[in-house]
């Protein structure tokens, strides 16, 4: 099980990388950490002619701490988040999420930007960063930069806002106040495997922010405005039936077991956030 032959380019600067994308050709693929692409290459499901590796770009490995946000370079690795070596916009959440991604050797190479761009519905960052109200910064071959809100970033399974001549350079996460709370819960058949259901809730009384997100569905993460509202105003774990009714509205036709698991995940992540454990 070996990949098809491909050319490999490792640009040394972001400018060089974007230059390469001016005429990317049909089958050029950007590789960040390569931990999802790697297996697809070995299985010959992905058959690119050329791979541009951006994991080593120093511009993509910086952290910029603003007063209201932290900007994380797209090539920062899951393990770096897990180890607490990076500043935290909300205490512990990104550490917690990172620790649950696959396995340590994968986290040592996989990157936050790569994970977002791969856009597997069952992946963690997609859902977590949606709950955190993050923004993705994208640079194009022409050098234009645009920011895309996470709510619009993922179009569906393996589909995102990023065009073939663009690179995600960073993720900008708002800072939360000390009174903010978060919960993140996923069910997996086995430690490190694809999630069957994910739910996240982030709430900050100071910012008057509350967001409930469901992940590991058929496509992009699903935000529930009514549940965000309800949990914030009541401070209570919502009932399963309430959540299921809302899921019926948001994602009609969802498999009943999936729906049930999403409801349980939300209850548990809310409990976690509310210290009801």
């Amino acid at each position: 099980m070996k990949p098809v032959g491909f050319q490999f380019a490792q640009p040394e600067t972001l400018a060089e990388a974007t230059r390469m994308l001016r005429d990317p050709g049909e089958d050029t693929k950007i590789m960040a950490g390569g931990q999802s692409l790697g297996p697809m290459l070995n299985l010959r499901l992905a058959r690119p002619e050329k791979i541009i590796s951006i994991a080593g770009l120093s511009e993509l490995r910086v952290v910029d701490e603003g007063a209201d946000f932290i900007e994380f370079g797209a090539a920062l690795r899951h393990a770096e988040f897990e180890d607490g070596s990076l500043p935290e916009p909300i205490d512990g959440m990104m550490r917690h999420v990172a620790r649950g991604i696959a396995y340590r050797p994968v986290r040592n190479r996989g990157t936050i930007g790569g994970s977002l761009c791969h856009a597997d519905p069952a992946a963690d960052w997609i859902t977590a960063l949606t709950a955190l109200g993050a923004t993705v910064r994208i640079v194009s071959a022409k050098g234009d930069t645009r920011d895309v809100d996470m709510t619009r970033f993922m179009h569906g399974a393996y589909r995102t806002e990023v065009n073939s001549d663009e690179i995600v350079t960073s993720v900008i996460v708002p800072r939360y106040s000390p009174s903010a709370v978060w919960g993140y819960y996923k069910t997996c058949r086995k430690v490190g495997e694809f999630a069957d259901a994910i739910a996240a809730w982030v709430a900050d009384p100071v910012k008057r922010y509350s967001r409930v997100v469901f992940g590991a569905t058929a496509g992009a993460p699903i935000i529930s405005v009514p549940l965000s509202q309800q949990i914030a105003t009541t401070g209570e774990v919502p009932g399963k039936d309430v959540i299921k009714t809302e899921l019926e509205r948001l994602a009609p036709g969802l498999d009943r077991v999936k729906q049930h698991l999403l409801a349980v995940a939300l209850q548990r992540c809310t409990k976690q956030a509310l210290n009801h454990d």
Partner: protein
Amino acid sequence: MGTGIGARVARKEDARLLSGQARFVGDLKFPRLLEAAYVRSPLAHGRLKSVTVPAKYKDRVFTASDLTDVLPIRPESSLPGYKASEHYPLAKDKVRFVGECIAICVAPTRAEAEDIADQVVVDIDPLPPLVNAADAKSKDAPLVHDDWDDNLFLTTTFDGDMAFAEKNATVVIEREYNTARQCMNPMEGKGTLSHWDEKAGQLVVYTSTQVPHLIRTGVAQYLQMDQGQVRVIAPDVGGGFGYKCVLQPEELSVSWVARKLRRPVRWVEDRREHLVAGANTRQHHYKIKAYADDRGKLLGLDAEITVDVGAYSVWPFTACLEAAQAGGNLPGPYALEGYRCKTYSVATNKPGFTPYRGVARPGVCFAMELTIDAIARAVGREPADVRRENLVPGSAMPYTNVTGKFYDSGDYQHSISEATKAIGLEAFRKRQKEARAQGRFLGLGFGTFTEQSAHGTKVFASWGLPLVPGYEQAMVKLTPSGSVEVRSGNHSFGQGLETTIGQVASEWLTVDISKINVVMGDTGMTPYSTGAYASRGMVMAGGAVSKAAEELAARIRVHAAHLLQCDAEDVTLKGGKAWRGAASVDFADIARAWYLRPDQLDEDVDTAGLEVTQGYKPDIDTGVFTYATHAAIVEVDAETGKVSFEDYYVFEDCGRRVNPMILEGQTYGGAAQGIGTALFEEVLYDPSGQPLTSTLADYILPGPAELPHFRLGHSETPSPYTRHGIKGVGEGAAIAPGGAVLNAINDALEPLGVEINELPATPHKILSAIIDADHQKEVAG
């Protein structure tokens, strides 16, 4: 104690494996080596119309039209009604499962071989696929094999007297059970490297196998060569579990290409190939009607067992070993008078059935143990009690059961008593009640089994197989420097046989195991053995080594007597020396005399020398029966369907323990695989017969966080019929977890009205059942 039988010695195998110096098939280096990749069938069933090879690869790609001098693998059986299948190593005319080999492509690297395979175009006319046994059994089903009149490899009937049971039963339990198709997943897949040795005039086949001497026979037979022209070497083998105890079609096609090109050719199975084309085991369906009295005493059992055996019979065991074993073993350790059983071995468009650790018994144990618990629930008694009362009592040993199995020794009831004690049954029931009050679902389940191990000549002959194991041979030799060399044609692929048969030699010869060199797996260097399967390695190879070492010890004493100037009867062996009272002579001196200084030998020395080969069979051919009780405490998360372990205890008796450490390792590993069967492992097919579980992200193997910390207890009831009282142990622990774990789940979920009768009990299945039960309650309420 030294390093003989019963010693907990570290393994001889470890040093090379822990330093990266082991040699698996994939590690071998040969000049001019070509690596192979296969073009495999993308369809489950179809007529192969054409295989188009680009002209530039004509001498790098081979198909059935090239392999004209290779016979199809056609395992025969003399069982009445058995139908033989023909499996061409490269498909000819028809493909019968996804992953069946169609063409072999060779190149200097695997990647380049895959590049070539990508350019071979296959044209297949699809035929309706048979994806499950029920469809394949139906009247108008399409035929997997065109020259058959149905899709049944074999039907067997055991028609015992059920009249008493039917008349006297106060409780009748009816259930259907299913086990999933599985994939054995040794961490090293199959692998074969063949080359033509001009000097020896031999095809040398390095292959990842459990049965090197069998493979030699198979390769010679199907490539139409003399056995003298074939040498098979099993190097380090990364796990087998049964997967590597049959002749693989790839062993034939790789060998054919190597012979044709006169170049070394290697194929190493990758995980995807394994999960697709190697998905070949475990799939059973049971229909059971059990009769019991109001105490839960089993009076009779009426069963129909259908095994979905896939498209082809494997050589040499055929597709029917599974059902034959299932029908014969269903009553298991229970004393049962009435028994009726019909089995069907049904051909489908899936890979051909291969015996996996426990062969049939994980299925029958699961069905039987769930039935026992269902009876216990029906009569309102503790399952452990009902189970104990139904077991064959120790006082009845040896015992011949309703299907004619000869249980040689043991006390089955003792195992359940010990397990009940160790798991803390009474305390658990209390905790369970408290937990339920808090909305937590704890459950306790037992699984008891008896495992026929090292079944011999008569048993295999009764299955009508063409290749029946007989006398296992081994050679034991004193080297010129006084160390010991053991040669066995059996093979070690993780079970530590190099160590344990070394211990047997150490026992007789009193030489420390560090001075015992064990050579296995090379037909050119070892005496004939049918190999390692059916938990026979320790019983058979250990027995043969024992016999040879005993004889060698006798000869050493004779030589020593000459050097010590006494009678052989006065010589004792200890610490690698021969002693007469306080005087001793080193084995090195004895060996030196024989090999280097024959001038020191007695005039009438025994010319047989210090190299002994012996053949061995136990005193009975019917196998020796290991037994155990597994007890599991689980918690079921009723909101997610996830099962976690609170405790897992195994009490087992496998006769005399040669190396307790290795034996415990076999039990942990077997139980872990059994839990994989119970909770995780399942090859899924879509209705076209496409396997959906082609990666390890789809086919879930249990990891350390999903498995319990196992606790073990042992008793030792030596078999009266084997050397040292040894019984087989390799397969046993994989048998009971399905029953124990599902009984625990069903015990946990009883308040919810949920009963799971299907393996694996995935969170999805459990949760679906809970949601259904909930829904029904709502409807009813």
